């Protein structure tokens, strides 16, 4: 994909194209496991945005000083420290959320998105660019979590709920599907896999469709160029004849 092509896409298109979850299949463990409610998804998303942005900033700063042979252990220690900090803060201020998310907060350390961005982007770009990349990747991960959790919560329990993680008070609650008509399978593991499969197929269909359009446009351009070349050759021949 060329640089100009990347630039042309809008914000949402970039979210879909460079989506780490549905496009690259990174960090799917937590996406499948914690997206049973909207609250969990937002909590996890914010934790990952914080860790990813700060780790990208720190790693872009220390990358020139790190010897090449030990860069992976160094990055892992940076990430593990940040995750421990975020975990402690969540335990102190949002204890309820911390208990529901459980080990998945600790497992942010081995979330491939974070080490992947450190390796692929932060170590070779400057601080501002790395921070922007971390924020974008984190947002795009959160966006996937939100999509999954909305589908699963609405179909599985029929209600959208959002509560304040600090005090555990309900902010709003809206019943979309009447009681007795919800599909409880969507709150189970099976529902997680199915929802993910459907969203992944949609992303893949969107990409295929776009690629076909791009290919068609490229072909039309090439045809037009050929025609123009032919016409130019013809005129050249005519000019020669006339001469």
């Amino acid at each position, binding site marked *: 994909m060329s640089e100009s092509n990347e630039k042309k896409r809008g914000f949402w298109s970039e979210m879909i194209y460079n989506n780490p979850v549905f496009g690259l299949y990174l960090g799917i463990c937590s996406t499948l496991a914690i997206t049973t409610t909207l609250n969990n998804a937002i909590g996890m998303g914010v934790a990952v945005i914080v860790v990813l942005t700060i780790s990208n900033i720190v790693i872009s700063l220390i990358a020139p000083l790190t010897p090449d042979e030990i860069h992976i252990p160094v990055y892992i220690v940076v990430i593990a420290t940040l995750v421990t900090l975020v975990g402690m803060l969540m335990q102190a201020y949002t204890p309820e959320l911390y208990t529901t998310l459980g080990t998945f907060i600790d*497992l942010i*350390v081995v979330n491939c998105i974070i080490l992947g961005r450190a390796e692929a982007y932060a170590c070779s770009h400057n601080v501002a660019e790395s921070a922007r990349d971390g924020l974008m990747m984190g947002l795009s991960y959160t966006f996937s979590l939100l999509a999954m959790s909305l589908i699963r919560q609405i179909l599985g329990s029929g209600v959208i709920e959002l509560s304040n993680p600090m005090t555990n008070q309900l902010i709003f609650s809206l019943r979309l599907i009447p009681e007795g008509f919800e599909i409880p399978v969507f709150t189970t593991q*099976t529902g997680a896999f199915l929802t993910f499969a459907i969203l992944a*197929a949609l992303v893949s269909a969107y990409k295929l469709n776009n690629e076909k359009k791009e290919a068609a446009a490229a072909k039309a351009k090439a045809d037009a160029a050929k025609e123009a070349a032919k016409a130019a050759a013809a005129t050249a021949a005519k000019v020669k004849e006339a001469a």
Partner: protein
Amino acid sequence: MNLLTIFLSAFLINNVILAKFIGMCPFMGVSTKLSSAIGMGIAVIFVIFGASVLSWALYYYALVPLGLEYMKLICFILLIAAFVQFVEMFIKKNSPSLYKSLGIYLPLITTNCAVLYVALDNITQKYNLIETIVNSIAVPAGFMLVLVIFATIRERLTASDVPEAWQGNPIALVVAAIMAIAFSAFAGLV
């Protein structure tokens, strides 16, 4: 009896992939061929067993006496990375044939969240040494079981006519969903 309960629960009921969604990355990555699924499974059993027993010892003999329990995440991840590196060098030197078949899977294991998960789980469940050993064998054995079944299904999938947008991972996830239904039947076992 208690040990049997731990084993069955970790092996089938709370299967690491289908019930806990841990270790999904290698699950999607190496499950396209049966031979690589078996290789990955054996490597994972070996590494998880070694790394979790070592982590258990590190926690109870070093971190607890020093009052550094909050450092467990950083210590465990470093221990796992070092252990994987060490195993790789050891196998390379002593058994080149084994290295040839397992070598490429070893570096992938450091980023397998199942390794860190088992090490942390043994601590949160407050298992003693024997329970830790049983749990650290049962979890990766369950991982390998599902990986091998899944790989055989995916080998058949390559020959079937799947709609373009569903090819590759999306259809594999549908298969995983159906397997999760089958495995949820084990819930009443213990």
